């Protein structure tokens, strides 16, 4: 009996005009585009330089800026007002104002000041750009300091562990896998159940001896299998496209992914139980998906969230799985190190699935 139920689900998925294509194309698009697009590295900063000094030293300064990877274009303008207009027209991100007395001051006193004004409409980009520019100016000032300093200079050299080149893609790929599993493993089966509700076929099933566990299990299993196929696709793509391979074992990768599949499919079922139309289910899902993604540490670090937001992330299962995935991919931690998030995810799995089964009533 169970075999036929699963067989029926597979037939329906394969015959759907749209779904099989989506299931294959979606992870590929996500893996090809997203790691490049969802890039938090601040690059391509455009600088407007007001060169009041117009001297060899000042030219040397902004050539140094030009040489940096972070700055894409350096435009020299006549006045601060002109630079400001350039920022207003979004042609420039940051202004470097070099005073007329620049060279004179350096030669005379060894001390001078430049003015940096940064466009902070995007606060993050603004402040990062300003600090990059300040670093360049700082480097330059050390270079031109004619007399060796009496004071020893403490130089800080930072090295990034687990992601030595600070490549944002390495950080993004595991998180994208989490999103894919959530959508394919959690939301598709739930929508499938609501679709049966809408079509009335669920009623026909309910007057048969097919039990509720069996019916739901037959719905979930095809999507779990699809989930594993997608995991494999993403794994192959991340190796081929980005050379990113999980540092941890593949067995661990699949094992923990299946745990998360159970969590999200339980969550999806829960939504399907409380929804009577696809529209309703879709909306509720997007509501939770957005909150889950924004509160998961996928884009913004949880540590920099305010306290109340941190408290919310504690009940976000996605947060734990992203933690686990990043560990498995970048650090290769074993189960002992992952114990806390894994145990919490197990808790979510039990909670969602029990709730889903209890709230699913065939008789009402």
């Amino acid at each position, binding site marked *: *009996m169970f075999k*036929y*139920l699963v067989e*029926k689900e597979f*037939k*329906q998925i394969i*015959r*759907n005009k749209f779904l099989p294509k989506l299931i294959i194309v979606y992870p590929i698009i996500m893996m090809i585009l997203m790691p490049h697009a969802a890039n938090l590295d601040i690059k391509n900063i455009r600088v407007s330089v007001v060169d009041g000094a117009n001297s060899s030293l000042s030219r040397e300064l902004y050539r140094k800026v030009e040489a940096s990877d972070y700055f894409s274009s350096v435009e020299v303008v006549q006045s601060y007002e002109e630079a400001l207009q350039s920022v207003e027209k979004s042609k420039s991100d940051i202004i470097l104002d070099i005073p007329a007395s620049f060279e004179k001051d350096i030669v005379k006193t060894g001390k001078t000041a430049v003015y940096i004004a940064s466009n902070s409409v995007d606060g993050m980009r603004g402040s990062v750009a300003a600090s990059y520019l300040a670093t360049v100016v700082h480097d330059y000032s050390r270079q031109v300091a004619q007399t060796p300093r009496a004071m020893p200079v403490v130089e800080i050299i930072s090295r990034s562990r687990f992601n030595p080149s600070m490549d944002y893609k390495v950080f993004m790929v595991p998180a994208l896998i989490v999103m894919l599993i959530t959508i394919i493993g959690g939301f598709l089966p739930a929508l499938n159940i609501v679709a049966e509700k809408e*079509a*009335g*076929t669920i*009623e*026909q*099933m*309910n*007057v*048969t*001896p*097919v*039990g509720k566990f069996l019916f739901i299990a037959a719905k979930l299993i095809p999507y779990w299998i699809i989930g594993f196929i997608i995991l494999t696709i993403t794994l192959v793509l991340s190796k081929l496209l980005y050379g990113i391979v999980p540092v941890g074992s593949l067995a661990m990768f699949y094992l923990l992914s299946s745990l998360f599949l159970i969590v999200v499919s339980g969550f999806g079922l829960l939504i399907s139980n409380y929804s009577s139309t696809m529209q309703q289910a879709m909306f509720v899902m997007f509501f939770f998906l957005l909150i889950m993604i924004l509160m998961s540490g996928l884009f913004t670090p949880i540590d920099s969230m305010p306290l109340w937001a941190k408290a919310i992330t504690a009940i976000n299962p996605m947060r734990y799985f992203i933690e686990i995935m990043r560990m498995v991919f970048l650090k290769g931690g074993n189960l002992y190190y992952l114990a806390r998030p894994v145990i919490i995810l197990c808790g979510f799995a039990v909670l969602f699935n029990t709730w889903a089964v209890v709230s699913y009533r*065939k*008789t*009402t």
Partner: protein
Amino acid sequence: MSSEHKPVVAENISKTFGQVTALQNISFETERGEMFGVIGPDGAGKTTLFRILTTLLVQTSGSAFVDGYDVKGDFRKIRKIIGYMPGRFSLYGDLSVEENLNFFASIFKVNPKDNYYLIKDIFHQLEPFRNRKASALSGGMKQKLALSCALIHKPSVLFLDEPTTGVDPVSRREFWQMLDRLKAIGITIIVSTAYMDEALLCDRIALMKNGILLGVNSPAGMVASYNNRLLAVKGDDMHSILKVLRDIKVVKSAYSFGHEHHAAISPDFGGDAVEKISQELTARGLNDTLVKSIKPSVEDCYMELSAN
């Protein structure tokens, strides 16, 4: 299938949805192998009653038994022995005709070949389309497929909720002929309909209105128990005639019935009813009216019962 139990027994079933009372103290019994019709207009509570009897809904009070099994406690057993065809087409549109049939056979753990004799007549007409997707079938064919799927496990009781709603007259007649053959095999059929003419095709009928059971009887018995005298009135100004009829004292009720009006005359009136009504109509300026005495139909019984 147990022979000592009545196929369906309802005892004071009530169902409320919040403030709305959908069913009120419904009680009836069906006999084995009979065609039992539940007749009533939309909103009478037919579907709610069917959903309770098929274990899809739990009644607020009262109890019901199918083949001796309680719909509340023994719902699992009931689901094995009943066939249910909901009013709305609810098979899998993306599976083919044959796949739907095999699927429903397999979840009842029966081999479709074993019970094929039950559906042979019906499925025969579907044979040319066996590989077509169910969603691509015509209305009449969909309904035949749904009936086949509801029968494939040889149910002891078959519930058909408004099977002929929205079906053309020829297909309707065909459908009832199929039901007659199923009855002959010994399957108890509970069928609901809003068409009064179909009531005559049932062995016994239950008339329902606004969640209340008005009466249970055979169509003939129902008509026989009608004790008013019934007149049919026709004329030029049908609208005024109806108004006038309702004003006449001896007329218990008057309602339009197709292209004429029916007037129920109280049995207490001793005189010539046709004469009396003709006079009354003429007295009020309505000439050229045709009044004749007629035999009541099930619908007249329904109007009489629902008026009380």
